[in-house]
């Protein structure tokens, strides 16, 4: 059955609905149920419109996030490719001496993930970008803690819900950028995330689509299909390396990645 394209007015209305939920801190019912949004292309239109809405109010883009990079999560969502969202500067929590703080009350139902962040050094603007081309264009890498959050009630998300909801972006903090990390084996590099002093989840680079640079190559090609190259200066967080851990007020998370200084995030 052919679907009617969703009008720009409807796209704008849904983007505003998500933005109100984000700003005023309440959850909404899934857009797949309440608005019948079912395809990724329409969901990306909503996400893009939402970002533009925020840019108009002074928001800045610092890069992109890649989601749904683990086989298990893809199977759970019934998809066979990742998705992406935009990193908004207003939710970047800088680490001082490896320690960052985030105000708990700005989130709805936050969870944390350990990831590898890429700092892109040269713009990638040609077809069919490969992981090796991504690595060659990468300036430095770092350990990163991403806060994922959902504006959708009880995280009851289908693919189109999370894409429209900026790939469930919540916020992030990034450890010191390392040029040396570029020459590590990003597939086998290990990480441990501790929760309130106890080791909670463990992972390795291969959890992100087999190789974090493969996830970034996917992103570069996907963005390019929308006419946006991955640019020099963009930060990309390349996907969770282990299960997500729910966060409560006052929780302290510590990410240790092989060869990198530890980075902590406290919800205050």
């Amino acid at each position, binding site marked *: 059955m052919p679907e009617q394209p969703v009008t720009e007015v409807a796209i704008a209305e849904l983007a505003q609905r998500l933005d109100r939920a984000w700003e005023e801190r309440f959850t909404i019912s899934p857009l797949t149920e309440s608005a019948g949004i079912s395809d990724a292309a329409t969901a990306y239109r909503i996400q893009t419109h939402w970002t533009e809405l925020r840019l108009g109010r002074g928001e800045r883009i610092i890069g992109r996030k890649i989601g749904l990079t683990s086989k298990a999560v893809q199977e759970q969502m019934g998809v066979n490719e990742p998705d992406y969202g935009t990193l908004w500067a207003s939710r970047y929590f800088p680490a001082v001496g490896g320690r960052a703080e985030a105000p708990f009350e700005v989130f709805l139902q936050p969870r944390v993930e350990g990831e590898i962040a890429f700092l892109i050094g040269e713009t990638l603007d040609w077809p069919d970008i490969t992981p*090796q081309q991504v690595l060659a*264009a990468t300036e430095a890498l770092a350990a990163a803690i991403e806060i994922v959050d959902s504006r959708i009630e009880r995280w009851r998300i289908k693919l189109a819900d999370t894409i429209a909801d900026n790939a469930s972006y919540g916020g992030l903090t990034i450890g010191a950028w390392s040029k040396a990390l*570029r020459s590590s*084996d990003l597939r086998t590099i290990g990480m441990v995330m501790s929760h309130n002093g106890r080791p909670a989840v463990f992972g390795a680079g291969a959890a992100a689509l087999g190789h974090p640079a493969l996830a970034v190559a996917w992103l570069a090609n996907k963005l390019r299909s929308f006419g946006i190259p991955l640019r020099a200066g963009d930060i990309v967080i390349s996907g969770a390396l282990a299960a997500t851990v729910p966060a409560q007020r006052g929780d302290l998370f510590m990410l240790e990645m092989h060869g990198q200084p530890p980075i902590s995030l406290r919800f205050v």
Partner: protein
Amino acid sequence: MELTRAEDSLATAIHQARMSRQPIASRAEDWAVNLAGAYRIQRARVPDAHCIGYKLGLISPAKQRQMGLDQPIYGRISRAMIRERVINLSDFVQPRLEPELAVVLRRPLPASAEPGMAVRAVGGIFLGVDILDSVWADYRFSAVEVIADNASGGGFLLGERVPDRMPDGELRLYLNGELRAAGPVAALGNLAQQLCWLAQAVGGLAAGQIIFLGSPAPAIPAASGVLEVMLGDDIVQAQLEGAG
């Protein structure tokens, strides 16, 4: 770009051999095509818009002399030639394997580049495998024939690690667990000079282009099974399937 009648008949012979997967016998110099014409033939097969990199061949002066040359040769790489973990050998005519290194450029390198610029243009060095695939029976060919056949370029594999400097040591190629070819990285020559030579030969290189640097070891015939190339603590693995 127009090919001459002689160039066109050589290009057609190569194309038909590749399509039918039937090797053809060398006719040495009978084609009445010169080296520039041979490079025009490979450019017609992989036009500039589809060229994502190059392979260097005949990098040893001894091999160059055997072929009556005094410099390396190059072939063109299209995106479709870059293979991943599982490779079907029946896609090829006479596949052979060489352990190699490849660089990916992060910045363009103009034709007039100096060696220092070449070093700064390199974004990463990767382990690689060159899956050679000559249409010339038993790899017996003239310089014009091998160049027109895209320097025997068939398929390519790349590793996923970026060492922080040009690695040294011995490149080793294993097939089904057996060491089949090995050669020192030092035999690849001076990286910056090779890149400058290539940049000049092709009229400049673009950011993102992938350049295979040639092999320090003789090629071995491909056969089904597990292919591994190692250098230091880095490894590339692939599964070869099908005839061979």
